[in-house]
Every structure is written in structure tokens, then in C-alpha cells.
């Protein structure tokens, strides 16, 4: 017996190849193995911050956030993406959804540039300050 539900598995594959086409313009490429490693890291980071990610394609948004940074060398893309994940989920776990994923990534990009291309705790604090200046406080719409 076959269950009638058909998951759209191919959508992820399409996004993967599109991402690599874009990355190639800047001299980057992520292998299948590297993408697997990034997913593994994403899962560990989510565990660390008690979060669950329901959209695997967010990985491509993490990569797209940093691929045009002048600070990144071709061998640093993996490490930088992993750091982006850490900062992103650390912030996501404390801020309500009034701040969307896209807005958060935009602020992270600005903060990273202010921090001379370094994605670390300091970047996180810069983002937090930016957000608090806008009047949004951590966990203020917790259910």
C-alpha cells in the first residue's frame, strides 16, 4: 500500500544547484559532502539552542548572506557559514517572531561588516544592541 502524500524532494536539489551556480561567480563551490557537513552542524547548533529548524533550505540563505563578503577566502566559506548558524540560532532562540528570519539575517550582515568581517560573540552583541535600539526586547511575545 502506498500513502498518497508526495513530498517535494526535488525542490531542495534545485536550490542546491542554483546556489552553486551563484557561488561559482565568486569562486566558491560547495560539494555534496560539505553540504551534508553543514546540515549536521545546523542540527547540532539547533540542539545547542533548543531550537528546531523546519526548513532545510535556510542553509542556502546562510551561505548567500556571506558569499559576497570581501573578507572570505574560498576555503573559509564552510567555517564562516557554521559561525553564521551559531549566531543566528543564538539570536533566534531569544527574539520573538516579530523579528523575521530575513530581518535578523540583514542585521547580522550589517553587524558582521561593523565587526570587520568576524562572526562571533561580538557580532551577536552588536545585533542585540541594534535590535534593542529599535525597541524590540527578547522573548516579549513568548506564549
Amino acid at each position: 500500500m502506498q500513502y498518497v502524500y508526495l513530498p517535494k524532494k526535488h525542490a531542495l536539489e534545485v536550490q542546491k544547484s542554483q546556489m552553486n551556480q551563484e557561488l561559482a561567480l565568486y569562486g566558491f563551490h560547495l560539494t555534496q559532502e560539505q553540504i551534508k557537513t553543514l546540515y549536521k552542524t545546523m542540527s547540532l547548533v539547533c540542539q545547542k539552542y533548543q531550537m528546531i529548524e523546519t526548513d532545510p533550505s535556510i542553509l542556502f540563505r546562510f551561505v548567500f548572506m556571506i558569499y559576497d563578503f570581501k573578507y572570505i577566502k574560498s576555503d573559509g566559506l564552510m567555517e564562516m557559514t557554521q559561525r553564521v548558524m551559531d549566531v543566528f540560532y543564538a539570536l533566534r532562540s531569544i527574539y520573538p517572531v516579530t523579528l523575521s528570519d530575513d530581518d535578523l539575517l540583514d542585521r547580522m550582515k550589517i553587524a558582521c561588516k561593523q565587526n570587520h568581517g568576524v562572526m562571533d560573540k561580538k557580532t551577536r552583541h552588536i545585533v542585540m544592541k541594534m535590535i534593542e535600539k529599535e525597541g524590540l526586547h527578547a522573548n516579549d511575545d513568548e506564549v
Partner: protein
Amino acid sequence: MQTMMKFEIKETSWKRLFDYLKSQSMINASYEKGLHDAFLHELRMRVKNYQRKRSSSISVTQYKELRRSMYYLLDHGLPSSNQTTYFLTTPIHEQLLMGEAMIAKQIDQITSLWLKCKQRPIYFPNERYHSILNEQLPKFLGSYDISYHAHRVIEDLDYPLVDGLPLDHDMYQLQGTDLIYEYLSRFDLEQHYVSLFDQDIPSLLNRYEQLHGVALHYLGLNLCSLLIPIQYCITILPNAISLCLSHEDITYILEHTAQLKKHAVASLKQQLPPFLFAYFEPTFLAFQERLETISKKTLALLLLDEDVRTKSLFQIPPAIDGLRFAKVYNEVLEQSTCMDKIKLLKEHQIGVQDMMDLFDNGIFYGDEFMMYFDTCMEIELIVFLFLLHQEEFAFHAIIKQKQISSWVAQHEWDSYLYQYLSSCSPIKWEKLEMIMSTTIFTLCV
């Protein structure tokens, strides 16, 4: 339980049915994979919508809540018959919609039950009881979230039922609308039962308060638990005419328990409507069993027969109206000496409640309070204490002089009252104790 049967609470869970079908090899690996993917897809969609399409990630706690809510909907979507066919042929999305439709029906049932209870008011000044009807249920109905938190009840449901309090909502092993429906059905039956004694309730509660020195509602007790022993006993007595029994009646019951109890339950069955009897039968039987080992004094207390006439009743007069209060206040302020103020207050025969308001408005300073208390009668001093510490007077407890010095004053004048009482002579304190042990204080409404 007529009303409780209207809506059947599901006993089969979706997960249990899935495990059963799998164990019977009615679900193969590819079906299971498809079902799993479909479930996850639905869950992801719910996460996305829950996060207002602004984020695809969610905290583990909230994710688990959404998953529990989905299982709750799936459980409610299951039909009472042909569950296997339904499970295997209905897509999960439709099953969820079916669950939502069933819960919506249950919400309608809860609403009509709630309205029925609200339209049958009984005299019972219990805050929790009224909170259930006027705050908690309307809040539940107004904020129930069928899409994301179908299984959740945040209301306390803190008015205890005859079989106890649904502590942490664990008592009935139910959640969401099932829990509310079960609780409300029981609440409705108990309210129906209490309404049978509608006329006698105010005097009964009054008598309970006089006898125990504390109101039933203050103790947070269930009203049925007070009525059940009384109804049982008046049923088995040959000539009982009121809810209040005499000492002879109690002696008779205790001496003839073995014979009387033979027909007690049958007789109660005739008196009560069948659905009420079905609900209360275990409680009546439990009391019947207890009756064999109960002492005369305990039974007398249960039946509110302890003679309260040996104690005098002091009704604390109500506060005077605002205009008169303002007039007295202004007149007092015009007086130049403390003795003049006291004389004026005595002339106006100001009650203790108003005196407390005048104290708060600063009519006396420092030692003037001590002078005032010195002119008070013993009963007035006790009423001050009673109004400040009603809980200490519960069960007719007698306050000790040593106790007072350890009390923390809430106002400036309390500290002077405590100081005055803790330093008064042993003879005066003896008089005060005598009043406490022989007087029942009640607030005049």
C-alpha cells in the same frame, strides 16, 4: 450520568491505532514512510503559520506543543466505528480537519453546559466557584486555540469537585476540551444537586460559620461534601424534618446504623433523579462505610448539630455612609484635645469599621491611640483584632497575649493596638479571652 453521556470522550488514540495496525502488518514500510512525511509536512506548515510565516525555526518546547496539539486533533478525528478503514484511506490533512470539526462540536457542548450552569445560580459566596463560571470558562472559550494548542488548558479549574481537585489537571487523565467537558459536566451535576436544597443553603452556611468560626467558602470546601452526610442522615431517620438534626437523632443514627443503612441507598435512589444518583452513589456509599466508625462528636459536627446557642453572637455593624463619615471626620479634626476627640467619637457611637477608617485618615497621633484604646470596651478591642486577623479566629481559636507581640503591623495604629494589648494587665487579658471563647463574630452585611 445523563449529561456526561452526550459527548463521548475518545479512548482510542491515533498513535495507539497506528501501532496496532503496524503490529497487524496492515501498514507496510513505504506507507509508514509516506505517512511520516505527510505528518512532518503538516507539522512544518503549522510551525510556519504559527510563526506568522516570519521564521522557519521554533523552540523545542513550542514544537512539542504543536505536535501534541496535532495528535490531539488526530485523536478527535477518529470515528467511533470503522477506524481502520478511516485511518488507512483518509489523508492526514483531512483527518486533522475532521478533528477540528469534532472539537468545534465539543466546544458548542461546553458552551451550552456553561450557560446552563450560569442560568442556575445558587447562593454560595465562594470566590473559586464564581471564578469558574464567570472568569475561567469564559476565558477558556474566548481564548481556546484549536489550531495550535488544541490540547491546552491554562485555566486553574480550582473549585474542588466532590471527588477532589483536578490538581495539575492530572485527575481525569484528560486534556484540552475533554478535560473542560469532564470537569464542567461534573460541576453541572453537583450544581443541580445543590439546587435541590436551594432554600436551606443560606441558613446552612450561616450555621456552619457560627459553629466552626470560619466560613465554608473560606476553607475552599465543596458544597456537596457538606450536604451529602446531611442528606444521607435525614433519609435514614424516620421523622427528620429539617437539615439540622437533634442530639437524639444523632444518637439514634449511631445506635441503629446497621439496620438503617440497609435501605438508605435504595431510599436515596428514589429521592434523586437517576443521573444524579449515579454520580453521587459512590460518595453516599463512602459516607455509609465511614458512619460505622465515626464518633458521635464528629457526626454532630458533620450534621451541624453542635449547639451554638451557648455562644453569644456579635454582629459587627456596617460602616456608615460617606456623608456622615465626612461630617464626623471634620468635627473630630476641629477638636483641640485628644480627650475631646474621644468624647465626640463616643457621642457619635462610631463603629469599629469606621474607627479603622478614621485612624487611617490620621485623627490620632502617637500616644493618642493608646489613650483611645484605654477608653474602649473589651469587645471593641476584640473586634479590632477580629477585623485585622479574621484567619486567626477561625475554628474559634483563642489568641494568646504572647502571640500579639509577634504580629507585624500593617498601619501605624495597628502597632499601638498590639502594644496596648500585649502590655495590658493579666486581669484585663483574661476578660478578653473570655469574650473570645464565648462570642461568635460575624460581619453584618
